[in-house]
Structures are given as C-alpha cells and as structure tokens.
C-alpha cells in the first residue's frame, strides 16, 4: 500500500511537471527554435529510478569465483563500475571499490556487462565499455588489481583506435593468460570512409600473458558480425577459447556462429543453425556457449529468423563443423529470453528467463549425458521488478546461478554438483 502511494505521488509529480513544461513550450510556440527545444530538453527526470551506485541500483552484475573461493562481483549502476568481494557466497559483500565513473556515457545497454576475472595468484582483471564521443563510438577500458581487489590501476584503453570497440568478453586460460574478445568497428569505419555502405562490426580478440598489463596486437576472427550482441566464450578441454556470436552471413543474415581460437589463429567460422534472420536491427541478445568434458560445444541463442523464432539449443561433437538440430528452449509462445549455459564433465546446465506479464522467472534444465537428454524445466527464482540476465558459474564441483534483481537483491543459488 505504501508503495502504491509513493508510486502514485511520483506519477502525479511527473504529470504535473510535464504539463508545466508543455505550457512553457506552448507559450514559446511562436519562436519554436533551439531556445524552446532547450527549455523542453530538461523534462523533470522522474525519480522512480534507483539513484545510487551500489548493487541495489545496478543494472548488470557479473560474478567470478577467485581461486581462493571468494566471490568477486563487478556491477554497473548509474554510470559507475564497481567491484566488491564476498566470502559467504554473496550473502554479504565487503565494501565496494569504485573503478570508474562515466555517467550516461557508460555502455549500460541490455547486453553489456562488466567483465571480471582473476588469475591463479589472485590478480584481478576488469574490462568494460563506454561511449567515448558524440558519435557513439565506444572504448573498452581495462583495469587490474594486484592487491587482492583493495585497489585498482586507473582504467586504460584496451586498443588504440579511433573507431568503436564494444562488448568485451573475457576468459582466463589454464596457463594463466587472459583471453579477450570484443566487437570492433574499425573495418566498418574504413569501409564507410571508402563510401561503402556497411553495417555491423567484427569479432576481434587478443591475449595477455601478464595479467592484463599488456595485450598482443589484436586480430580478427570474423570481419562480419552483429554490432550489438554480447559474445559468448568458453574453453575447450585443450584450453583453447571458443567464441559464439551473431555473425553476418551473405544477404545480411544474422545467424549464430562459433569459432575456435588456436594460438593466435582463428579456425573457420562454423554456423550453428540456419535460422535465416535477415535483419539490420540490433537484437541486444547474444548467445551462450559451454564446452563439456568431452569437448562437445553446447550453444543456446535467440533468433527471429524466418526458419525459426525464439530461444534454441544445439550441440556439436566435432568442434562446430556440424550442429545437432536446434531444439526450442521453454514453451512456444512464452517470452523465453537470455539463455545461459554451464558444463562440467558430462553435465550441462541451461538457464533462461521468462516473463508472464507480472513477474520474471528463471528456469533451469539439466542434462547428465552431455546434452542428449534433458530434465523438465524447473523454476529457480522469480521477481516482480527489474532483473539482469541469469548467469551460471562454478566453484569447484558446484554450479551456481547468479541473478541480480532490483526487488529481491542479488542471488547466488546452488543449482547442482558435478557427479
């Protein structure tokens, strides 16, 4: 009831202010030019959004388990990137360290999230993107901590390039090196300079052998990718990164692809499924990949293709050369979104989000035989307010769901164990 009163009062305020602005605008109608648009460019910002920089106001939170078992959590809230640690599986967090403040320039799009990882020595590495100019070119910044997360180096740009780099995705390899991949727009920028009409971006990648201090010269895995979807990444049993992303195939078809990155070389682009999604739009809905103990690739993705539409799962036992027939995730007709995968040994966990008109819920299904058969979906958690994507991660043999919700807080739930 109290909430109702408050939200009503806010709406009332917004409407009143809006009417106020409008009448000023109407008065100025005779000279409707920059001055009036300026006057109306400052509509009272409704205050129903969370205002702080803490986790309670975050739009995206990314977890990572440090080698000592501590949970590292990086989040973005109102333009600020922060990190905090937890020794009790997320129940309580130690004081947060603010890494950077970019205000409205921080890339807080629905598929963007800060990236965090730590090496065997406990050195922490972070990457995030922000918009560096008025043409919405983004820059990826990285920062490190060598004192267990007490302090971080001042953020530095990952690459020196005037165009746009966005959607970093980070993996720590068994040899302690850091693999980073991102959407890079320099080739599109060059093409445009040459008068060529070109949309999309490219999948670029690099590695660091010194904890993220320096990176090798970046390379391209695929020159044609969607420019606004996160990249999925996982390590195969040999420790090679495998990326999954929305590629652009001939005729402007934006379907999923996977690619193995072997020692400074990208293997051929493998198409996950022929969904035939011809679009120039920004889906903000990238895929997820997990590789099981047998080396099988498990991929889940979203599409609105002419051949299938919704969220789907497929796997490949031959490094992506061929994929199984895609199977639908969740019930047809429901708003299934944001699939995420985790694999350990022969076990595979798949979570996704559904919205029923009043609450968002996270569902899980599990396979104990490397993706051949699956359990029936199980409801893990629900929330009425804003929520982030559901994410999966492991600590030792245990699998966890990480889910940030506005109304019910940050949740780290144990969802299973490697058998």
């Amino acid at each position, binding site marked *: 009831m109290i909430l109702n009163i408050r939200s009503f009062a806010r709406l009332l305020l917004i409407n009143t202010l809006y009417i106020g602005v409008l009448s000023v605008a109407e008065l100025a109608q005779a000279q409707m030019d920059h001055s009036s*648009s300026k006057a109306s460019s400052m509509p009272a910002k409704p205050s129903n959004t969370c205002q702080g920089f803490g986790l309670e106001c975050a739009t995206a939170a990314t977890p990572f388990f440090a080698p000592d078992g501590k949970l590292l959590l990086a989040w973005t809230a109102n333009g600020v990137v922060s990190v905090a640690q937890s020794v009790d599986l997320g129940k309580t967090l130690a004081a947060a360290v603010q890494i950077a403040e970019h205000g409205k320039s921080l890339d807080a799009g629905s598929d963007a999230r800060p990236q965090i990882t730590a090496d065997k020595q406990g050195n922490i590495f972070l990457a995030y993107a922000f918009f560096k100019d008025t043409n919405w070119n983004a820059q990826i910044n990285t920062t490190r901590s060598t004192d267990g997360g007490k302090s971080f180096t001042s953020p530095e740009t990952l690459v020196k390039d005037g165009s746009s780099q966005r959607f970093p995705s980070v993996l720590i390899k068994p040899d302690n090196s850091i693999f980073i991949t991102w959407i890079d727009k320099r080739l599109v920028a060059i093409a445009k300079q040459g008068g060529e009409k070109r949309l999309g971006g490219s999948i670029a990648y690099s590695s660091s052998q010194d904890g993220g201090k320096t990176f090798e010269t970046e390379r391209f895995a695929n020159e044609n990718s969607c420019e606004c979807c996160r990249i999925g990444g996982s390590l195969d049993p040999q420790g090679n990164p495998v990326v999954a992303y929305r590629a652009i195939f001939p005729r402007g078809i934006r379907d999923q692809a996977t690619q193995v990155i072997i020692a400074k070389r990208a293997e051929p682009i493998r198409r996950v499924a022929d969904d035939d999604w011809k679009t*120039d739009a920004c889906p903000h809905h990238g895929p997820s990949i997990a590789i099981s103990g047998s080396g099988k690739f498990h991929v889940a993705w979203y599409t609105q293709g002419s051949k299938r539409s919704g969220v789907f799962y497929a796997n490949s036992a031959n490094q992506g050369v061929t994929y199984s027939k895609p199977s639908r995730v969740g019930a047809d007709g429901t708003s299934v979104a944001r699939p995420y995968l985790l694999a350990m040994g022969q076990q595979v966990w798949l979570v996704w989000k559904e919205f029923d008109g009043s609450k968002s819920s996270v569902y899980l299904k599990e396979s104990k035989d490397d993706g051949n058969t699956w359990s029936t979906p199980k409801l893990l958690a629900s929330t009425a307010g804003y929520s982030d994507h559901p994410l999966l991660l492991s600590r030792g043999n245990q699998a966890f769901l990480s889910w940030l919700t506005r109304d019910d807080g940050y949740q780290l739930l144990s969802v299973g164990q490697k058998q």
Partner: protein
Amino acid sequence: MKQLWLALLSALSLSFAGSALADTSSLKPYQAGDWKAITKAANGEPLAIHFWGVTCPACVKEMPQWGQFLKANPNAKVVFIQVDDVSTENILKMLNKAGLEKVNSYYVVAPFDERLRYEIDPKWYGETPTTILIDKNGKATRKTGLVDFQKLSIALKAKS
C-alpha cells in the same frame, strides 16, 4: 481509496496523452502504463510508433529518413520512443540532426526490459529499430528493422 487514485491517475494520463500529439518539441518520459494512453491518443486514426536508440547504428542511419518522411507527410501521426539509457541532451541532439526536433518524442525512464515491453507487445524482445503500426481499427503490426516509407505513407493516410 486505491480506486480514487487510479481514477485520478488515468485522468491525468489522458490529459497527458491528449496533448501528446500536439506539435511540440518536448521530449517526454515514457514508463510502464503509458502505452495505452499513447495509442489511444490517435483517436482512431492510423498511428506509427517508432522505437529507436541513439546507440543503435541502424537507427541512427534511418532517423534522417524519418525526418524527410514527416516533412513530406506532415499529417502522418508518428510517435518516437528512444529506448537507450542515455542523456536527454543526446537524444535531442540526434532528433535535431534528423530534422525531428518537433516530433512527438519519448524516452524510457527505466531500462527498456521485458516488463516495459509486455504491454506494448508481449512477443517483442526489444530489437531496435522497430516500428509498430496501429491501423484505424486498433490493429497493431510490428516491424523490426528499416521501414519502407512508401508503404508507411499509404498506411498512415488518415482518411483512406
């Protein structure tokens, strides 16, 4: 008590939306519950609601075409809703650049998530650009990607 508030609220929303189609350059906040008022405000005339984001390259490319379209079709009813979490200053800048400074424009106040989209179209995942066309009978058609402006001008002819 609750009913009274709801009544008051809907009265306010109506007045809000009633003036929403006036030719002003104001950029208004869009939040949950606004969809009905915006679509009702067309009074049975065909209406297009264009969802765009300043960080979406395809949208940025298309916006000047919307500017030209409205110049050529001044009576077409179009509402613009900007869905990225950016400053109003940046939204206005892009609208101005596209010649859309006087159009009926909104920006989302909270993240443009499944809760906000549900009342618009429960089957829509929020790709940008997306245009929803509501015909004079209230039937909505959603189109993701670039718009065919020739088709749009026919669809938006008020008395057809």
